[in-house]
């Protein structure tokens, strides 16, 4: 194993500096071109981009559905869609955004692209499995589309029994699609865990691992531990519809609350599948744009793992009013508060990183700040919902809707956008228009708060979620909220515009436009086909901005793992480290 050799044995590596090529002629985008080469590629970067394209399509569909919902809610009762259609539309909005956008967004799309680069590896451990997981995702998506056109689904994204076992829509195709999708998620997680363990570049010890990778590692653990339970749940639900096995169906003697236990044992940790990789991105972005070493490296790294673990203990707070025993209610309420601890640790460490930093308010950093603001609101309202007595009042109201949109959209989507803008030059070697990017970021921020702040108020006053109709008292709030949704929509269309423009005519970005010390920036942009032309060697942490750039661009001087001793300008790795100390 490469890592062990570099750190634990006394073998010395001959290293020298490899400056990245600022204007590479050959890179992963222009080698192996053509549709067939893309479809059969095992290159993690191309698979990442294919995921990125797919989730963009689903984000567009889910977003348009959301705009339809908000438009319908401009006035009480029917304006242009029926109640049944409305039910199907909000189900699809939820299912698509969660299963097809949020869950694969950071791990499968950005993670796939950036994880081997940050490790200094040529690829993930199982490249073919990686491609397979993409196609499994596509198959799952096809089943879902099939479900939409053969009856639709109106159960909400949670598929609660007994309604899901008896409703007339094509629930089976939908749940089977999500079941298939689960395997895609599992395989990605499996791949990442093994890659992080086995394919780290020489010198990249666990305490030098970028925090993004700690985030992805924690995420992968959740994916691997929780997703199988979703698989068995949906399989049982499918069997419930197919054979009437009765485990979850009260008409046949089963227990619907048991279904909710099964479902939330996956779906609560899944919330952390969505948000924890976002934390990783925020750590990278804040450190890079503050020009400062990250504050509390281990606190941030381990709090990701802590969140992953605690996330498994709190699922019952979704079921306070579902008929579960009061003992379980108490235990779950208590455990829920624990989530606040590691999350708070992260927020404080990020703030401390920015303190006295040389902050550069580029677009990724703007999104990171938006994240901090919105996610904190989302987190605090989550604590309120975790309090048992408060939740009895707020359960299934717009308050919950606003809360999870603040966490999922205000947190995760903002982190995703931060990551997208941060790594965009690395992906395509081109810059986007900074001016329009800031405009769009501002519109999204304002639009988001216009949309969801009124929903907190409505929810607290008793407006139930998922309702087609409402009393007149809520109309001003709904209208304001809908206006906000339109503003946000405009923001996203501007983003689509300048990103598309950047792809076609964007100016060249150079290999490292942000001056980052992280490993993925020490190779040319766009990245060479096999990531690095050399085997990178790591001697400093990824956030050591007080050390010169030259120390971050080292690689093994000879292709024979450092056994030759003839090269002239080589630096001895142990010597360099001594000089630093």
């Amino acid at each position: 194993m490469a890592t062990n050799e570099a750190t634990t044995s006394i073998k010395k590596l001959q290293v020298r500096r490899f400056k990245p090529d600022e204007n590479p002629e050959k890179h992963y985008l222009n080698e192996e071109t053509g549709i067939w080469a893309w479809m059969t590629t095992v290159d993690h970067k191309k698979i990442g981009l294919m995921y990125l394209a797919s989730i963009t399509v689903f984000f567009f569909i889910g977003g348009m559905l959301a705009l339809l919902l908000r438009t319908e809610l401009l006035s009480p009762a029917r304006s242009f869609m029926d109640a049944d259609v409305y039910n199907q539309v909000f189900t699809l909005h939820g299912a698509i955004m969660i299963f097809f956008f949020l869950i694969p967004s950071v791990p499968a799309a950005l993670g796939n692209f950036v994880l081997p680069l940050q490790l200094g590896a040529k690829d993930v451990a199982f490249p073919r499995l990686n491609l397979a997981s993409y196609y499994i995702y596509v198959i799952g998506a096809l089943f879902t589309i099939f479900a939409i056109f053969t009856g639709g689904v109106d159960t909400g994204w949670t598929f609660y029994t007994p309604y899901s076992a008896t409703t007339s829509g094509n629930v089976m195709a939908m749940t089977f699609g999500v079941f298939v999708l689960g395997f895609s998620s599992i395989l990605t997680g499996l791949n990442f865990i093994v890659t992080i363990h086995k394919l780290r570049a020489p010198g990249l010890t666990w305490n030098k691992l970028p925090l993004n990778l700690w985030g992805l590692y924690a995420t992968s653990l959740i994916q691997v531990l929780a997703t199988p339970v979703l698989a068995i749940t949906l399989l049982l639900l499918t069997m419930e519809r197919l054979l009437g096995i009765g485990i979850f169906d009260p008409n046949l003697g089963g227990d619907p609350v048991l279904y909710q236990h099964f479902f939330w044992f996956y779906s609560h940790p899944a919330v952390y599948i969505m948000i924890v990789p976002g934390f990783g991105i925020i750590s990278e972005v804040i450190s890079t744009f503050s020009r400062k070493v990250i504050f509390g490296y281990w606190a941030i790294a381990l709090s990701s793992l802590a969140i992953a673990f605690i996330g498994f203990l709190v699922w019952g707070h979704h079921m306070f009013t579902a008929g579960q025993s009061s003992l379980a209610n108490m235990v779950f309420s208590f455990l829920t508060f624990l989530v606040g601890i590691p999350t708070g640790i992260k927020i404080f460490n990020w703030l401390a990183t920015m303190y006295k930093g040389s902050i550069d308010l580029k677009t990724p950093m703007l999104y990171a700040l938006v994240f901090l603001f919105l996610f904190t609101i989302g987190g605090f309202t989550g604590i309120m919902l975790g309090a048992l007595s408060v939740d009895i009042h707020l359960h299934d109201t717009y308050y919950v809707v606003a809360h999870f949109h603040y966490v999922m959209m205000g947190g995760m989507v903002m982190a995703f956008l931060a990551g997208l803008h941060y790594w965009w030059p690395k992906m395509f070697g081109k810059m986007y228009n900074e001016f329009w990017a800031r405009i769009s970021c501002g519109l999204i921020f304002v639009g988001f708060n216009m949309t969801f702040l009124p929903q907190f108020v409505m929810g607290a006053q008793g407006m139930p979620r998922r309702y087609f109709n409402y009393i007149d008292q809520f109309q001003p709030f709904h209208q304001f909220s809908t206006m906000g949704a339109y503003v946000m929509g405009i923001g996203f269309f501007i983003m689509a515009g300048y990103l598309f423009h950047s792809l076609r005519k964007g100016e060249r970005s150079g290999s490292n436009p942000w001056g980052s010390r992280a490993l993925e920036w020490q190779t040319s942009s766009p990245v060479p086909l096999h990531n690095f032309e050399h085997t990178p060697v790591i001697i400093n942490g990824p956030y050591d901005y007080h050390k010169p750039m030259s120390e971050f661009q080292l690689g093994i001087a000879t292709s024979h793992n450092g056994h030759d001793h003839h090269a002239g300008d080589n630096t001895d790795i142990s010597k360099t480290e001594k000089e630093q100390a």
Partner: protein
Amino acid sequence: MSGHHISSAKFLWGVGTTLFLLTFITVAITWIAIPAPWNVVVAIGIAVVKAIIVSAFFMNLYWDTKFHAMLFVLSIVFFLLFIGITLLDTLYRTDPIPTF
């Protein structure tokens, strides 16, 4: 490296024989009626012993890197969390299956 442990044929047969024996014991024990909770405890206890033998000596966990054993234990810990916390609900309800 720990990954390539080669067991002798004799040893593998020994492990197999032990497992056959334990299977016989777990059946034989049902012939003497053990009172209610303990019959389950004994049956599961024997199954756990068998599972440990299989994982340690057939799946080579005994010689393998600790991380693989950790993964194995981790999965069981999370299963226990799943069942343990679910039982906090199902065992303490006033009405086993709520009627609506």
